[in-house]
């Protein structure tokens, strides 16, 4: 035990001198001893274990005790309750930027300290800083991100028609038609879950309408009846509108099932579109090997658009501004913390100073690189930016409207009107 402790101490000292030269000038090892920091985050299971390893590194560096409370999907409710009760945690990781803005406006959050702000500016593209700012003040930064612009495909199905990963949307439709000639549907769509459909739409919209319009639509500054929305829906209909291209029963297929439909036995489709976490669904539910039988290509360019990525992510924010809390924020903003989790797998970071060698395999490396390379063309998941009544409710709002669109892709006008009506109600303007 004692030996271990000494070893840890030595490690901490080494790490401390090595990587933390950027911000923590005054923090030598162990000088926060006796202080406790509480972190609330969404991660449970394996992700919790991995995050706790990141926190353990902080403890060994500074001596501050860190207590992690997993809150799962109920995180907003948990935080809301604790803030009302006057006992907020020191730090929270929040997946909904809208919630961060809400807390910031209610003065529940503390703006980050100048050192943290500098770290955020140094290590990330400007778009991430903008995402964490409310009324010109920086409240947080994205610690863990999800790359929601990936098409995962079955190598076997592609080989059968000699197809290669398409680079443009038209190529994708062409490849899809070739695949459908072999009797296999081209794409599996997890339409029973509305959020997969909003991700489809967001990726096409970001490409056809551009990042500026994307920002406007996310704030509902342009209506959903805008011609740019029509264009995106029409592009989408090129794929969704062909019954031979989309695997049957899409509206009854939940997201994990749609992945199994492609990589399980027997497959019913050749591709599935979704985020990087498809990889973990593949490895837990099917025999296919990621990187070998299951590969991905980035969401293709539509009408000559530049590389762009729709991302999700968990933003670190602080409710208190004591020294230990600030040190932890500084640590989380540094490449060092992300590097630990990156090595453990299942983690992507927008932090461009995490070397790509930190990621465990080629697929993850590539997924992370695309987020970093897209630079300021990264946009946060629009439905997560929208009020929950519109962008986050089962069987209502955008989810339901896009499900209806998947059921009847010809009805572009009707869907646009319904989207606009629901948006007006939810945004209250």
């Amino acid at each position, binding site marked *: 035990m004692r030996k271990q402790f000494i070893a840890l101490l030595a490690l901490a000292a080494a790490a401390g001198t090595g990587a933390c030269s950027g911000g923590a000038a005054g923090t030598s090892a162990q000088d926060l001893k006796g202080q406790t920091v509480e972190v609330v985050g969404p991660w449970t299971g394996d992700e919790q274990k991995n995050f706790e390893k990141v926190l353990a590194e902080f403890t060994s560096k500074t001596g501050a005790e860190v207590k992690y409370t997993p809150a799962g999907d109920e995180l907003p409710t948990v935080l809301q309750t604790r803030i009302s009760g006057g006992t907020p945690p020191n730090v929270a990781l929040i997946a909904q930027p809208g919630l961060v803005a809400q807390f910031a406006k209610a003065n529940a959050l503390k703006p980050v300290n100048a050192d943290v702000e500098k770290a955020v500016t140094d290590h990330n593209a400007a778009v991430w800083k903008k995402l964490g700012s409310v009324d010109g003040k920086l409240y947080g930064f994205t610690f863990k991100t999800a790359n929601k612009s990936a098409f995962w495909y079955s190598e076997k199905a592609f080989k059968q028609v000699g197809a290669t990963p398409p680079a443009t949307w038209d190529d994708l439709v062409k490849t899809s038609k070739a695949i459908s000639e*072999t009797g296999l549907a081209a794409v599996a769509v997890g339409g029973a879950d509305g959020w997969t459909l909003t991700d489809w739409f967001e990726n096409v919209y970001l490409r056809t309408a551009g990042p500026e319009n994307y920002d406007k639509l996310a704030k509902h500054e342009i209506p959903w009846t805008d011609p740019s929305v029509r264009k995106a829906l029409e592009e989408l209909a090129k794929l969704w509108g062909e019954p031979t291209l989309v695997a049957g029963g899409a509206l009854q297929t939940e997201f994990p099932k749609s992945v199994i439909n492609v990589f399980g036995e027997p497959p019913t489709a050749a591709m599935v579109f979704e985020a990087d976490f498809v990889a973990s669904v593949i490895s837990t539910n099917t025999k296919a090997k990621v990187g070998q039988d299951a590969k991905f290509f980035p969401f293709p360019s539509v009408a000559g658009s530049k590389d762009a990525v729709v991302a999700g992510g968990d933003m670190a924010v602080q409710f208190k501004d004591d020294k230990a809390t600030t040190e932890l924020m500084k640590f989380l903003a540094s490449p060092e913390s992300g590097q630990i989790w990156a090595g453990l797998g299942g983690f992507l970071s927008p932090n461009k100073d995490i070397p790509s060698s930190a990621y465990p395999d080629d697929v993850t490396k590539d997924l992370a690189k695309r987020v970093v390379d897209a630079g300021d063309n990264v946009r946060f998941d629009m439905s997560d930016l929208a009020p929950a009544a519109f962008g986050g409710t089962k069987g209502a709002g955008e989810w339901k409207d896009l499900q209806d669109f998947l059921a009847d892709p010809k009805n572009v006008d009707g869907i646009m009107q319904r989207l606009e009506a629901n948006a007006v109600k939810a945004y209250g303007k």
Partner: protein
Amino acid sequence: MRLRTNVDAAPGRSPRQAIPFLLPALVVLAALVLYPLVYSLIRSFFDARGDEFVGLSNYVDTFTDPRTLTAFRNNVIWVVVAPAAVTGLGLIFAVLTERIRWATAFRLVLFMPMAISLFASGIIFRLVYEEDPNQGIVNAAAVGVHDVFSPASQYPGARPREGYAATEAGFTAARPSRAGEVITLPLIGFSPQDVPAQALPASVPSAGDGELRGVVWLDVSVGGKAGSVDPTERGLPGVAVEAVREGKVVARTTTGDDGRFTFPDLARGEVVVRLPSSNFTLPFRGLTWLGPSLITPVIISSWIWIMTGFAITFIAAGLSAIPRDALEAARVDGATEWQVFRRVTIPLLSPVLLVVFVTLVINVLKIFELVFVIAPGSVQEEANVLALQMWQVSFGTGGDQGAGSALAVILFLLVAPAMLFNIRRFRRERS
């Protein structure tokens, strides 16, 4: 009433004496029932944030919101169908199991679903009604029965590459042909791995005098040219081909192992080649149980499965309390078993049946978990019920607890008459 000096002799007569004893229960009741009730009522007159009085506007919104109206409609369907079905089934099973030997064991089995949480039952039925016949047992059974009577076609989903119009009878050539010509008929939409083993590499036959010849093959291969027979592509054996003249089939043949077919003696004049749809009918995959049209009946059926045991237990208890001599007397008087059941058993049981029915009505109005679990997100709107709508409005969608409270009050008002009825009944029985 005059108080006696010795209070202990008549306990409960003095309110002053009673209050201290009732107080703990009253406090608990007030804190857990009365306060939430009153607070919900007050809350329902305020807006989403809870600080602006909006009068009845939450109620107006509720009654004009299409989602809530669907929920109302579904609740009506539930109340009309489900409690009556469960009470009826309960009665039938209770009467039938009374006569058999292993009655208790049988009832135990029927009662077992009650021991499973509604949530878990929901997950079970979500799988039972899954659309994919490889997973959903209902569709697996439907497909099994269907395939016994009409077996699947040989090339489900295959289709000609181009130049053929899909009609009811099959794929009909756009251009007519005549004897002496050679027809190449490339099919797509079928996996090369599923081609029968006896299939031979395809090749185009030479033209024959007075004969119409052709080849049907699977035009799918890596690097193959669309519409031409490539070396690795094989013919499709056993495809029925028809020659049609003026709407009538004049000749019929099937392809050989190399995919070739020949119409030997067609008279002069043009014919249209057609591939009958029986070649390509898609296999029957069962019904979309969890789709928008069937979802409410499906959820009701699972609720019936769960609650029937409850009804049986109560009705069986009522049955055993019926005086045997009444039944015997009827039988001695020459009544048939049906008459005994109809004229004696049911009237004597009616108080129990009524209590069971009303309890089920209350239960049905509050139904929540089953709908939440069984209905996939895409049809949750169609399957919606009031309790689920209340939860979604209050907590699911940005938290409008004002509108949610309004729904809660409406739900309470709907349940209240049934509750009152039950309470009065119990009271009458006791007196």
